[in-house]
């Protein structure tokens, strides 16, 4: 069984999108697509099926990550959604159905460790590495691990 995650990156700051892409690929995973706005996410092919999505809250064309998160949940329900934002406090307690958040400015270690943790959860379930401090998770993610394990 392959241990490569298919990753979607939704980020309007191109530099950060490039950086996240590099870190994801360096960690042995594959970036399926990148989008800078809600519309660009909607324009993606329906059969894309990402396993992990990094979603910025503030996006291009006045769109936001919460709407992107809801779109992903309806179209690709299996995707784990992690917000990447400098505005952690704007995220509601229930994460609006998303699974976690990484605060900006993120460090190389913080992001890579989060990727490794999620990959471990996805393929080993529950994860066999400790959750890094950089990744704040919603209860939905733990639920996901236990569902997969049973």
């Amino acid at each position, binding site marked *: 069984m392959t241990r490569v995650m298919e990753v979607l990156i939704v980020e309007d700051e191109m530099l*950060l999108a490039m950086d996240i892409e590099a870190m994801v690929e360096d960690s042995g995973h594959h970036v399926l697509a990148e989008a800078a706005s809600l519309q660009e996410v909607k324009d993606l092919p329906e059969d894309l099926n990402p396993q992990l999505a990094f979603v910025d809250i503030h996006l291009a064309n006045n769109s936001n990550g919460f709407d992107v998160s809801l779109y992903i949940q309806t179209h690709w329900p299996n995707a784990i959604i992690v917000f990447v934002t400098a505005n952690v406090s704007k995220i509601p307690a229930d994460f609006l159905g998303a699974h976690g958040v990484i605060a900006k400015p993120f460090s190389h270690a913080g992001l890579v460790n989060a990727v490794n943790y999620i990959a471990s959860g996805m393929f080993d379930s529950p994860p066999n590495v400790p959750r890094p401090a950089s990744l704040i998770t919603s209860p939905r993610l733990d639920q996901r691990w236990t569902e997969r394990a049973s």
Partner: protein
Amino acid sequence: MKQRDDWHLTDVLEYEHGRGDPFAAAVRATRMPMVITDPGQEDNPIVFCNVAFQELTGYSRAEIVGRNCRFLQGPETDPAGVAQVREAIATGSDIGIDLLNYRKDGTTFWNALYMSPVRDKAGKIQFFFASQMDVSDRVAAQSALNDQKEIVEREVVRRTADLRAALDAKDILLHEVDHRVKNNLTMIGSLLRLQVRTIDDPSVALKLDSMLERVDALAVVHRQLYQSSDIGRFDIGSFSENLVSDVVGSSGRSDITVDVEAQPLFVDAANASALGLIINEILTNAVKHAFDDGRSGRLSLMVSGGEDHGIIRICDDGPGMPSTKRSKSIGTALIARLAKQARAEATWHDNQPGTCVTITFPREDTRT
């Protein structure tokens, strides 16, 4: 009816000062304006008034006796106050009230009226006794005070609104600056990381990696500061704990065991960046030099605090580094200079095997 007749005797006493009923004489001579009314007669007329009352109102005795007290009222008299007096008469109870009354010449005065019924042995009301006092000065003073108070209150409301608006503007500005700092730090990190990937020379890449780690450490400091509820204090304890897991995690070295014994330890936020960078230098140094060539080992972090100082000790069980080599790296220079800035002290000693670095620094005063 005898008592009632006694009251009428005061008419006679006018001609015989100081003789007869001493109480009636006192009422006649006092400077306090007084009247007596007879509710037994039609429309409760005044049956007695003293000289002070005549002087207060400007009416003569002949103009007063036989009339109801309402002749003192005028257009500006408060009808609600008059109604209270009427109610007291109807129920036969005492009343004390300030009323605006009119003199004969049309001028007004504030009348502090006190009125009470006089009953006979059977409890039946025989008379109403009323004393008056001109309290215009007191009412004017009170009214001036109220006006003044209202002016002050209006001013307070206005200034509070100004202050709140200024505070809101400051909050928005602070939020905006904070946002820009976060974005810039994120972009600097991304730029460095993208550059590192293009460098073939391992020694250059290594140096750039060190730079990147320092920027990352600053990013962690800033992130923790803005997420904290108190931006004046910085928890160096939980920062160190997070950083050690970040640094070891990013090295991909699962063969390094990490021992953490940390507690929350607050320092002045002004020293957060300096102390954060010092800890980053020590941790990254330990991972690179103590556990190089794939040597496995144990890295320990201990955070503790006394009354007025904090201690962070980072130990490895590597081969130890000769002091000559240590003094040549920029890391050591950074530690020494930043320690001076944060009024901290860094000391190295032999861990047998390995090296221990102890940082001692002043704590912010938590006893305030």
